[in-house]
């Protein structure tokens, strides 16, 4: 009783494999695709599966229904084993309308299954999507097509609940969810619980959504669609949760104040994709303060003011924001104040493609200030690491009295994975020393012998009134100084202070793959999953390929040179035109090659593998 099916697959092949499964949903912004994705994750998490999800938002707020530029998608890869990316391509795509099919078909694996809502493949829908003819008529090439009148079936299923037509159509996502839960043998219970809570105030909608969910599930059952249930994963005893990079970072920021005992003062100006962090923090509300400034300059300056006052100033934004913070960052370097500036990278230059990912802000972060203004730059590699990196940043900032830049990106911010919640009791102590120096010879540029950090005495402390600022200061009195030798010395001191940070940090270590051999792949930031998976695959295939992934980009960690020397070739893989590669080459004079893509999209594992293969064969 399948409504319309091409390629002669009246029944979908059953397949019971340990291979990770990739499912992609695509529909109008109004179709509730992101919600559907989140609910599917809920069940996966409930089964203790591992997963990695990635939402693919349109740039428009709410584009006219049915247009290609208004399509929102959600992709999830899940498995009983570790999952590090949302998957190169989908095993199954569920397209809510022709525009969704058009824009997402390229994301499906060869031979993959495409489910479409037949009810939307009418003249109007096809035209809006820019199709001259119904694409189903010619078949979808290598893909399997399953065309179901989801709209109609949903309307039928919810008919009894009495919701209006709009609400009824809206329930399509639950119908699809029901179907997919069936297909992957997942439990409906967590979803039902959520529906109960969420729609408690609108019983008709509650009933409609449940009805749709059950109808979709029943459809799969009745049609005897094959079930591909991933094997039960090992049971984890620690508590875990689903977390996006944004949420992990927000928790990390909240944790800073708790661990340091200092107020955390988060100042920012909204910008995609960083604003989600502001929202998350504003929602947390307690233990941290948020301040929405009039622009990024004010944001970072307010954060600096807060740090001057003894709090930890944090300011986040994306590329254009970091650009605007350039001058103030120089002040923080000169005034030697702790400060954390987060840059959620997006595709540039200029406004570029604001919702897309990229790693092209690294050199700006490292070098983009006038004068000699060195500062540390860090980058988390996974959504979960967005938590850890914040503690690391705070530790460095406080210990060295320096601004720190953290580079995340659009992909990391939105992607979600299963996260083992750290034990709050075991998190590090970040409290700064508040011992007062000798009052009589006090000046604000007295330094710690080891870290070279200047002392941090905050306004309000009796007996230590002092002035700081952006003019060069005498190293031995803190007064303004134009003395040439003093300047040379202060420039060197500030540089040395930053250089010493890597002495206190662990050296670089191979992440995965060979410890020596043919090719060393160096990466940083959000490309972690794709690079690690690619190297793991090559490793299994018997190639001597190693993967080094940096979280501390500046100063570079110790040991890179040594590791690199154990490989015949080095390739730096990044979503830009070779930023880290330039740093590596200039520091170590290693003929590092480049694996670059600047398309606004994360790496595909297959592409990475292919390029490394090429290098192996050269």
């Amino acid at each position, binding site marked *: 009783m399948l409504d319309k099916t091409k390629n002669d697959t009246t029944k979908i092949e059953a397949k019971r494999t340990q291979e990770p499964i990739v499912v992609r949903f695509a529909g109008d912004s109004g179709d509730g695709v992101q919600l559907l994705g989140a609910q599917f994750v809920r069940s996966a998490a409930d089964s203790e599966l591992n997963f990695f999800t990635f939402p693919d938002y349109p740039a428009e707020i709410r584009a006219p229904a049915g247009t290609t530029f208004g399509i929102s998608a959600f992709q999830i890869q899940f498995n009983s084993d570790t999952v590090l990316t949302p998957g190169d391509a989908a095993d199954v795509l569920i397209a809510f309308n022709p525009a969704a099919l058009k824009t997402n078909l390229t994301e499906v694996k060869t031979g993959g299954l495409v489910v479409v809502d037949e009810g939307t493949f009418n003249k109007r829908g096809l035209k809006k999507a820019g199709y001259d003819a119904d694409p189903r008529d010619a078949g979808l090439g290598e893909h399997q097509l399953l065309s179901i009148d989801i709209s109609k079936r949903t309307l039928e299923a919810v008919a009894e609940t009495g919701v209006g037509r709009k609400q009824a159509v809206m329930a399509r996502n639950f119908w699809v969810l029901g179907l997919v839960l069936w297909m992957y043998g997942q439990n409906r219970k967590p979803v039902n619980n959520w529906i109960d809570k969420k729609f408690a105030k609108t019983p008709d909608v509650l009933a409609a959504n449940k009805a749709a969910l059950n109808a979709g599930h029943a459809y799969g059952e009745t049609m005897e669609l094959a079930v591909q249930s991933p094997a039960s994963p090992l049971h984890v005893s620690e508590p875990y949760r689903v977390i996006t990079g944004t949420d992990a970072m927000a928790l990390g920021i909240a*944790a800073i104040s708790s661990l340091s005992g200092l107020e955390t003062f988060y100042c920012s100006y909204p910008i995609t994709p960083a604003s989600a962090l502001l929202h998350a923090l504003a929602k947390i509300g307690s233990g941290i303060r948020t301040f929405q400034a009039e622009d990024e300059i004010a944001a970072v300056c307010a954060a600096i003011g807060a740090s001057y006052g003894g709090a930890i100033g944090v300011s986040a934004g994306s590329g254009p924001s970091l650009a605007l913070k350039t001058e103030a960052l120089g002040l923080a370097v000169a005034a030697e104040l702790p400060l954390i500036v987060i840059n959620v990278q997006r595709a540039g230059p200029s406004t570029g493609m604001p919702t897309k990912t990229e790693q092209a802000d690294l050199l700006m972060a490292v070098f983009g200030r006038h004068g000699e203004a060195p500062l540390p730059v860090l980058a988390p590699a996974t959504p979960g690491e967005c938590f850890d990196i914040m503690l690391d940043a705070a530790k460095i900032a406080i210990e060295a009295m320096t601004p720190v830049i953290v580079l995340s990106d659009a992909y990391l911010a939105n992607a979600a994975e299963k996260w083992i*919640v750290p034990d709050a009791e075991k998190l590090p102590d970040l409290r700064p020393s508040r011992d007062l120096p000798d009052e009589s010879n006090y000046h604000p540029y007295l330094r710690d012998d080891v870290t070279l950090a200047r002392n941090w005495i905050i306004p309000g402390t009796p007996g230590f009134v002092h*002035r700081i600022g952006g003019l060069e200061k005498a190293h031995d009195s803190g007064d303004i100084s134009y003395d040439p030798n003093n300047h040379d010395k202060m420039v060197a001191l500030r540089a040395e202070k930053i250089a010493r940070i890597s002495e206190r940090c662990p050296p670089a270590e191979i992440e995965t793959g060979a410890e020596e051999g043919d090719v060393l792949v160096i990466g940083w930031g959000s490309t972690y999953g794709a690079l690690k998976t690619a190297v793991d695959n090559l490793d299994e295939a018997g190639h001597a390929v190693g993967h080094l992934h940096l979280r501390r980009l500046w100063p570079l960690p110790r040991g890179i040179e040594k590791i690199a020397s154990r490989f015949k070739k080095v390739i730096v893989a990044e979503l830009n035109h070779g930023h880290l590669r330039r740093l590596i080459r200039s520091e170590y004079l290693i003929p590092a090659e480049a694996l670059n893509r600047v398309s606004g999209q994360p790496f595909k594992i297959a592409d990475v593998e292919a390029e490394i293969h090429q290098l192996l064969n050269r």
Partner: protein
Amino acid sequence: MNEIALSAKDFTTDQEVRWCPGCGDYAILKAVRKVLADIGRPPHEVAFVSGIGCAARFPYYLSTYGFHTIHGRAAAVASGLKLARPELDVWVVGGDGDFLSIGGNHTIHVLRRNIDLNLLLFNNAIYGLTKGQYSPTSAIGTRSPSSPEGSADSPINAASLALGSGARFVARSADTLQDHLPEILKRAQAHKGASFVEIFQNCIVYNDNAFGPITDKTAGPDVVVRAEHGEPLIFGKDREKGLVFDPERNQFKPVVIGDEATRDQIAHHDETSLTLAQALAVMDGPGAPMVLGVLYCAPEATYRERLPENYRTKPLDRSALSDLLLGAAASR
């Protein structure tokens, strides 16, 4: 508050003052030191934040906490400081370039947010530190190194801009008016919320006498109204002139008392009237005086006072942190 007796000396640093001899900044420094001593908060509870410019060197000469930041951004830095440390008495000092040119946006926003800061604008109608280019308060036609044939930009009226931004305290005084400036500064400091004080300041090197008779002991009374709440807006050497509302033009105009209006017709100053303040701020035209004093003072809840209660919470302890990390949505 004034428990410890403090003197201006308690607010004086060992730093050699580096303004040009004769600069109006010296007089302002003197007034501020005196006012700080009179207010009597211990120096370590006071912080001065400045941008860049001659005016912005101010913090070096006060033995309070001080932060000499970057050009135009003092109000933003001070906002962060004050919100993080509400117990401090935070002052912001800058020139007309600092506050109104590059820093204009922060000035507007700190005023409308009503963050409890004392903002002192040293208006010398010139960029002093960069050697004398015309500034946003320079008169049209000002000849300067960057406008050798006269500037074309019409000047900003700082008080009017502040009022337009939603400031709740706006006042004016001048460097040399030591019988006026300290009182205005005290009022500004006492005001809860952002207080904006425009101080006409003479740059003897690049714009000498820009405010001409206004700060002049002899000529002043004829061209300056010292507005005081509840008092009639009277001026003139013999207090023979005043301001009345002209319903024809919908604005205030100067009159000679007796000739053009009776003493009773003279408008009274009302600090709480925004319309009056705006009218006084832009007072213009033949015979129109410059109005000094507190033009507007209408306290409202400060930014901090308007924040939701939990904004003020202390850092979470580890157990609260643990709950937060686990989250309501934690899947187990």
